[in-house]
């Protein structure tokens, strides 16, 4: 299948008074059309900066190297005007915090309508004011109904009542669904969801995951999450991130069954401790994003580190369809 999104050697830095923060250092990532890809990794590993960079919303961070090929075009080099047309209608974003992601001054219906207007007018206020594409209420309603139908929400909720409500009158789960519906209204080719289940209770998490499962195969998705269950349930492939790079990526089933990179193994072993077992402690310090260790950024915490690990940054090695950036799978590891 053709690749929809192809990120190659992406470097994003932030200039701070304390020094240059390297949030992304050489990210490689592929998303095929209609494929769901999960990104997991600890806090501060660069997941958020990565997806913001895809939309060029990473300011004040700077993309200093690498490319983001979306449908053959390099987003890292597009102008802001062209980027505006990509945002929303090509790549849509569902933000993590559903409590603040809706404008408290407008009803759900008004905000869903706004998403449509932005799509039609390319987010240009003046074109909208001068009314090049006036949307009538019937058209807006038809689009909203069809998206809610896609999400199988048409029967669950009373649509008329929902559209007249203000965000603060909705439950967290409902707000999350409205956000997803809003993103889908523009019929994006890639949907990015940042921690879609984090701020929800268990039951609502299940409902939200069911939504993503419904969407699976119909639109490409990039799901960023700490919750490995969420990723294993909804994604075809996963990418594990550490220290601003992706250390392992491949089919979800394979990575979860046979984690290869020492960091992936550590991450998965922390996920579900059996009763009475304590979590394995992780030695070493959390990574300093300004002062990276030479070689593999994980080697100070790695139990299988070799001498080469502290000298050479590993490139990706392919093992049974899984790409692992670790010297254990290179020449040094085999010998």
């Amino acid at each position, binding site marked *: 299948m053709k690749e929809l999104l192809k990120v190659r050697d992406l470097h994003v830095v932030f200039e701070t008074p304390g020094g240059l923060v390297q949030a992304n250092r050489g990210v490689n990532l592929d998303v095929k059309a209609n494929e769901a890809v999960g990104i997991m990794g600890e806090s501060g590993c660069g997941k958020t900066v990565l997806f913001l960079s895809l939309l060029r919303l990473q300011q004040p961070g700077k993309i200093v190297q690498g490319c983001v090929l979306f449908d053959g075009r390099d987003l890292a080099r597009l102008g802001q005007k062209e980027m505006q047309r990509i*945002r929303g209608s090509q790549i849509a974003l569902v933000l993590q915090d559903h409590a603040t992601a809706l404008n408290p001054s407008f009803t759900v219906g008004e905000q869903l309508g706004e998403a449509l207007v932005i799509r039609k007018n390319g987010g240009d206020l003046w074109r909208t004011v001068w009314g090049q594409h006036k949307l009538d209420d019937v058209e807006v309603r038809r689009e909203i109904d069809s998206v809610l139908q896609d999400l199988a929400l048409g029967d669950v909720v009373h649509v008329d009542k929902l559209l007249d409500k203000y965000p603060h009158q909705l439950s967290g789960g409902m707000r999350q669904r409205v956000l997803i519906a809003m993103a889908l209204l523009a019929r994006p080719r890639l949907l990015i969801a940042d921690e879609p289940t984090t701020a929800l209770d268990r039951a609502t998490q299940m409902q939200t995951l069911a939504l993503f499962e419904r969407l699976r195969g119909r639109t490409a998705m990039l799901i960023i999450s700490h919750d490995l269950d969420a990723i294993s349930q909804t994604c075809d492939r996963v990418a594990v991130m550490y220290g601003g790079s992706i250390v392992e990526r491949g089919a979800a089933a394979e990575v979860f069954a046979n984690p290869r990179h020492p960091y992936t193994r550590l991450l998965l072993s922390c996920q579900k401790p059996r009763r009475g077992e304590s979590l394995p402690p992780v030695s070493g310090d959390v990574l300093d994003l300004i002062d990276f260790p030479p070689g593999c950024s994980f080697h100070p915490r790695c139990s299988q580190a070799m001498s080469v690990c502290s000298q050479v940054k590993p490139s990706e090695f392919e093992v049974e369809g899984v790409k692992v950036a670790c010297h254990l799978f290179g020449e040094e590891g085999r010998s």
Partner: protein
Amino acid sequence: MPIKADKMTWAGVAILALLVLCTILAPLITPHDPWAYGRQPFLNPGRVNPLGTNDVGQDIFSELVYGGRTSLLIGFAAALVAVTTGTLIGLVSGFCKGRLDEALMGITDVFLVIPALPLVILVSVYVGTSIWNIILVIGLVSWPSTARVIRSQTLSVRESGYVESAHAMGADDSWLMWRHVLPNVLPLILARFVLAVAIAMLMEASLSFLGLGDPTAKSWGMMLHYAFARGGFINGLWWWYLPPGLAIALCTLALNLVNFGVEERSDPRLKRVMER
């Protein structure tokens, strides 16, 4: 408590509406032309002249009602100038950040530091005293605090999830500012406006009292000025200086009552309590 605040607001609105209505219907209410001379000066209140006459024989009650026109006009117009300027500068400053923000806030700080009344006096001496000059001058000195308040609110709103969300949906900067930031600072703008009217009216009264008002227009401040200058205070002619003073106080009170409610309503948490 919130319900009480609501009642106070409506009381303020009622008083204000009454005053505005009186000045609009001035020709119907007033028994005489406020400019007409020829009556006997310094008359005590009576049937023909409800509040007596002034030093040149003009009917004080008619002066009072017509004076309200000028005072209210200056108050509202100057507040409009001040709040529009302040809002524009605050919005742009908070939204664009960086160099432009620093420059605009630098100017704002300079205006904030200069005491308002002496500056107004100074400027009005230079530009001359017509109603429109007074409006501009009062507007000129009253925008900085509004700019500050709007900027800080803009800063917090622009970092909110829904602005980021709309940005990610493909909205441009002017869209974000107009559709997302402005509606969420609007209650604040309204509250500032009501307060600015009260401040502008007081400032107009002070200016006129000092003799820097428009001598060709009648306002409550000018009435106080003449009452003071022509011996009304010394001779205890309370019907000359008390009514305009009370009118100014009443108007300011009403505006502050309205402001009280608007400010409470701009806080969504309190709003929900009121709806219950």
